[in-house]
C-alpha cells in the first residue's frame, strides 16, 4: 500500500490501529483472567478484571473521538473510509467483549465461596481457550488485513456454539443431580453464555475485517450451532 502524501494522515491511521490492538489486548486479558478467577475462585483477580474494564471503555471513547475528528478533517474515501468506519464498528464489539468479561468476573466474585465439584470447569475451560484463540486470530487478521484468517475465524464460531451446547447440557445434569449445585451452575451457565456471545462479537469483527479488505460483506451463510434456545431436559 502506498503512503499518503500527507504524512500526518498516515500517522493517524496507524495510531488508530495501534489503539485497536491495545484495546483488543485488554479485552483478551480480561476474558482470560475472568475465567481464571472463576476457576481458581480468586476474588482479587476478579476485582482486577472488573477494574480493568474502565481502561477498555476509555480506549473506546478515544478511538471513537479520533474517528469523528478524522471524518471531519480528512473526509476519508475508499479504503481509508472503510478503515475508519471499520475501526468504529470493531471498538463497539471489543467494548461488548470487555463487558461480558466483566460480567463473568462479577459472577466469579459471587461464587468464590462455593464448593466446586471437581470436573465442573473443564467444559467451560475448553470454551474459553477456544474463544481466546478466536479473538487472538481475529485481532491478528485485523492487524495484517488478512481476510483468509478472518474467514477461518468466522467459520470456526460454530465450534464454540457446539461446545456451548454440551456445557449447557452438562450443567443441567449437575443441577439435576444435586439441587445444591443450582446456584453455582446458574452462574457458570451465564458464564458459558457470555463466552458464546463473545464468539459472536468475534465473528462480527471477522466480518468487518473482510469488509475492510474487500469492500464487500461475506456472502455465505454462517453455520450456526447454538441449539440451547430450544433445549430441554425431558423427564424420563
Amino acid at each position, binding site marked *: *500500500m*502506498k*503512503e*499518503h*502524501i*500527507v504524512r500526518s*494522515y498516515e500517522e493517524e491511521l496507524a495510531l488508530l490501529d495501534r489503539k485497536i490492538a491495545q484495546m483488543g489486548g485488554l479485552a483478551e486479558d480480561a476474558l482470560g483472567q475472568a475465567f481464571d478467577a472463576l476457576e481458581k475462585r480468586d476474588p482479587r483477580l476478579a476485582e482486577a478484571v472488573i477494574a480493568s474494564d474502565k481502561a477498555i471503555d476509555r480506549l473506546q471513547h478515544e478511538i471513537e473521538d479520533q474517528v469523528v475528528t478524522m471524518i471531519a478533517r480528512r*473526509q*476519508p*474515501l*475508499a*479504503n*481509508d*473510509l*472503510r478503515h475508519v468506519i471499520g475501526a468504529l464498528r470493531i471498538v463497539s464489539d471489543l467494548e461488548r467483549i470487555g463487558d461480558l468479561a466483566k460480567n463473568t468476573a462479577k459472577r466469579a466474585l459471587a461464587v468464590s465461596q462455593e464448593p466446586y465439584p471437581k470436573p465442573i470447569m473443564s467444559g467451560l475451560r475448553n470454551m474459553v481457550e477456544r474463544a481466546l484463540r478466536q479473538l487472538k486470530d481475529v485481532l491478528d487478521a485485523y492487524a495484517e488485513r488478512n481476510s483468509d484468517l478472518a474467514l477461518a475465524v468466522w467459520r470456526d464460531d460454530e465450534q464454540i456454539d457446539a461446545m456451548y451446547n454440551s456445557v449447557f447440557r452438562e450443567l443441567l445434569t449437575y443441577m439435576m443431580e444435586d439441587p445444591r449445585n443450582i446456584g453455582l451452575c446458574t452462574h457458570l451457565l451465564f458464564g458459558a453464555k457470555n463466552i458464546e456471545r463473545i464468539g459472536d462479537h468475534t465473528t462480527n469483527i471477522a466480518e468487518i475485517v473482510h469488509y475492510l479488505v*474487500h*469492500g*464487500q460483506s461475506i456472502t455465505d*451463510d454462517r453455520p450456526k450451532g447454538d441449539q440451547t434456545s430450544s433445549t430441554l431436559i425431558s423427564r424420563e
Partner: protein
Amino acid sequence: MNQQVRTAELSIAAQAAAQKQAGMGGAKVRARDVNVFYGDKQALKNVSVDIPARAVTAFIGPSGCGKSTFLRCMNRMNDTISGARVSGQITIDDEDIYDPRLDVVQLRARVGMVFQKPNPFPKSIYENVAYGPRIHGLASSRADLDEIVMSSLEKAGLLKEVQDRLHESGTGLSGGQQQRLCIARAIAVSPEVILMDEPCSALDPIATAKIEELIDELRENYCIIIVTHSMQQAARVSQRTAFFHLGELIEEGDTDEIFTNPRNRRTQDYITGRYG
C-alpha cells in the same frame, strides 16, 4: 429462512440498481476509442465510455490527465486549437458529432458549457441570457424572448436575486451569481448536454453549495458532465464518476462504488491522496 431473507435482500438490491439505471435514462453520449493529439503529444488514449442522459457524470483525475480535453471533445471546442487532432467516434443520441456535415454552431447550442471562471458578457443581465436564443432564432417575439430569459434565470436559481435589476451589468454580480448567470445563459438555448469545467473552483462554499443544488435540480432534464478537482464535490453531486490518468480512462462506474470501493488501485491511490 435465512436463505429466503437473503434472496429478498438481493432482489431489493437488484431492484434499487435497476431503478437507479432507469432514473439515469439510457446513454446520451457515447465515446468509442477517442484519441486526441496536440501536435505530437497524445493527450487522450482510446477512451470509450457511455454517459447517461439524466445524470451527473464527474470526471476526476490529476492535472494533465485529459479530463478537460475529453470534455472539450464533446462540443468540438478542440477544433479551435491549432494542431489538435481527434480520432475515434463520439455520438450524441447516435448522431456522430464529428460528421463533417454537422453544423458546429448548432452542436454547441445542444452542448452548453460553463467554465471555471464566470465569464458573463459585459452586457446587462437580461442581454447575457437573451443573446443565445436571439442568435439561434429561438424567440419569435419580444414576449417570447422575455419568457425564455425569465424561465432560464428561474431554472438557474437566480431570478429572485436579479429580477429588479435585469438591465444592470452582469459583471456587477457576485462571483457565485455570475456563475449562475452563465448557467442561465447556457440553458437559455435549451441544450441537451451541459459541460462544466470546474464550475465552483473560484467560488466560496456558500456559492458552491448553491451551484451544487442547482446541478442536482438540472440533472432531471439535462445530461451533465462536470470536471472537478474536489473529490468531495464529485462524491456529492455526481451519480457516475470517471477517473482519468495520463490520458487514459482508468475506471468509470457508480459514484457510490468509486468512492467506497474502487476496483482499480490507481483510482484508490488518487482519491485517497496517496503517491501516484
